[in-house]
């Protein structure tokens, strides 16, 4: 694999981007002393993290540091065993909630490797998901016509080809199309907390820009975002309020985006912040 360093290219934080953050608000997500095993192997080892509404947190770390584990635990994947710790989401005990309940309450995971479901039409899938959430909220389900209107409006934000809506979920999609499809789902489900698990991986610069614009358009004072990433690259486009470094199952450092730059220059101790060509 060819590895090359990217030159530092961070643009200054625009105040308007921070306008959502209001530090006086109650936390949306509070993770306390989280311990997680996968097949009896310890992956997260006492992780703490607090996120307030409107904040964007980037979680960086080398391979195997537990980034994806954190993302999956938040979404409620059963293969991950929480052995200790608490997660509060909007004042509720997240760990007590089923996967689908978390989703309906506003937790959204954009998958690192979006899963293919052969034969299941993308639109059918999106409509089912949206209406599950709407009926949970006591809203009327959208009929086909209204849903179509909504999806046509949202699809523009990710510049996705409408043809993909009529194909099976992620089946035969390119890497970029899959990631855009994830962001489209996020746009439609309008979560409170979006966890983007290496959404930047495998994207070329153009695709990264489109996906980032999609994410930025979804920033709002009521929506928090966790950006799980291996590379600093996406943070050039989606500027975080906080950056955390995860290593050996713990957050070892936190700071603002300057930390990401520092990591890019110095590395995690591994030659890890370079990006593949």
């Amino acid at each position, binding site marked *: 694999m060819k590895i090359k360093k990217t030159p530092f290219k961070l643009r200054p934080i625009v105040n308007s981007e921070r306008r959502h953050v209001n530090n006086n608000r109650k936390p949306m997500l509070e993770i306390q002393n989280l311990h997680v095993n996968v097949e009896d192997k310890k992956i997260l080892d006492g992780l703490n993290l607090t996120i307030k509404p409107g904040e964007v947190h980037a979680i960086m770390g080398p391979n195997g540091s537990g980034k994806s584990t954190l993302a999956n635990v938040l979404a409620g994947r059963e293969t991950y065993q929480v052995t200790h710790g608490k997660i509060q989401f909007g004042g509720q005990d997240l760990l007590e909630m089923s996967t689908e309940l978390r*989703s309906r309450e506003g937790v959204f995971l954009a998958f690192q490797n979006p899963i293919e479901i*052969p*034969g299941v039409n993308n639109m059918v899938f999106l409509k089912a998901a949206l209406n599950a959430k709407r009926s949970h909220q006591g809203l009327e389900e959208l009929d086909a016509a209204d849903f179509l209107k909504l999806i046509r409006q949202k699809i523009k934000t990710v510049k996705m080809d409408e043809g993909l809506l009529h194909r099976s979920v992620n089946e035969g999609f390119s890497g970029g199309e899959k990631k855009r499809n994830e962001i489209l789902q996020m746009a439609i489900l309008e979560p409170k907390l979006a966890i983007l698990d290496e959404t930047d991986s495998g994207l070329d610069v153009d695709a990264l820009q489109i996906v980032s614009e999609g994410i930025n358009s979804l920033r709002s004072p009521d929506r928090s975002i966790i950006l799980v990433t291996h590379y600093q690259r996406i943070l050039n486009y989606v500027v975080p309020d906080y950056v955390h470094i995860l290593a050996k199952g713990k957050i070892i450092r936190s700071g603002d985006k300057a930390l990401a730059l520092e990591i890019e220059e110095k590395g995690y101790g591994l030659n890890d912040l370079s990006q593949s060509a």
Partner: protein
Amino acid sequence: MPEASLLKIGFKIINMETIETDLDSVLKQEYQHGFVTDVDESFLPPGLTEQTIRQISAIKKEPEFLLEWRLKAFERWLTLREPEWSTIHHPPINYQEISYYAAPKSLEDGPKSLDEVDPKLLETYEKLGIPIEEQKALSGIAVDAVFDSVSVATTFKAELEKVGVIFCSFSEAVQNHPDLVQKYLGTVVPQTDNFFATLNSAVFSDGAFVYIPKGVRCPMELSSYFRINATNTGQFERTLIIAEEGSYVSYLEGCTAPQRDENQLHAAVVELVAMEGAEIRYSTIQNWYPGDENGKGGIYNFVTKRGICKGDNAKISWTQVETGSAVTWKYPSVILKGDNSSGEFYSVALTNNYQQADTGTKMTHIGKNTHSTIISKGISAGHGQNAYRGLVKIAKNADNSRNFSQCDSLLMGNKSGAHTFPYIEVKNPTAQVEHEATTSKIGEDQLFLCQQRGISAEDAVSLIVNGFCKEIFKKLPMEFAVEARKLLSISLEGSVG
């Protein structure tokens, strides 16, 4: 979401978009069509003797040839034993405890129009979501509804008569077109074919008859409903469809049955004859009562369906969605006799709780350049057992014949079973036969994705299973596809722990 929309197994014109997005997941715990109307019925007492057959024939005022034919079948049947080679297990059937004829009393003279139909019957259809009047108005589909054994209503006859299509009950055909019946009856499924077909040949009560004259494209899809509604009454339909040279017909068959505890025997025979260049499409949704979650009750469904592509370039296509019955035993088959003829079999079979299905097809290639396609999707949940059993036979002179078979099984629940038994017999060195089969569990990660997007586990399963079956649903007429999806969701209830 009102229940009525699920109950309605209707033929509304539904646009494609609605189908694509129709994901209404109102799931009911009880069998949808589980109720019994009390209709005063006249029926023969249980038991099967030569006398029974003479009685049936006499009640139906049948010509001599048919009585003889029945008696010959009965004589043969007495020498046969129930087949044991399938994976199906069920308590022994006592054929002497079954009543072989039942007719709604008020209809003995035969209705001339819907006005004459017993209002209680119409009410039953209403409950089942088949408002005949509405169908006439909405769908333009001719309906030949079979209530138990006697045909009670036939519509759109006039329109069909204009182009010379005969679509009537089997009994009517016997009276009005005895020559056609005599010419074709038993030519595809001989009396001697198998235990259940022979039984049917002896005691069949009624069914449908279709004749499409040369060069005629049947102007509407033909539909027939089969229901069982009388305690301990076996139902033995017989359907015969003849498509003359260059004609086309699409026939839809759908079944639901009221809920009850006793097992009921259902042994139908369907014969299709396609002459040169003719095409017959036969679609079935089978939703007989499957028994309860403990395997109690349910219909025993032993069906013999076979078509023959008699002339060159003929085509027969079977599509079936089998979600009902405690036991399903059926192998809709095609004899590809004419050169360049083709046969298709598209099947979804779902078994949940203690349901058992042993289903598949036989494609017999006799003519040259004959083609067959088999796509079978089996879903096993609960304690359900699902077997695909198929035969592809390439005879010695069937040069350049082709077959492609794909059989996929989806397993849900560690008490379920999925079995694949393809038989391939090739006697011609220019033939190409390909069979592929896979068996796998429903994907954990797919379930997780759906749940992460807020879809409940049960809905997610239904969604994924519907995706798994999509290829088959595409082959169904549109309104049937909608119904099939709903049936699948309903049938899967309780399968997710």
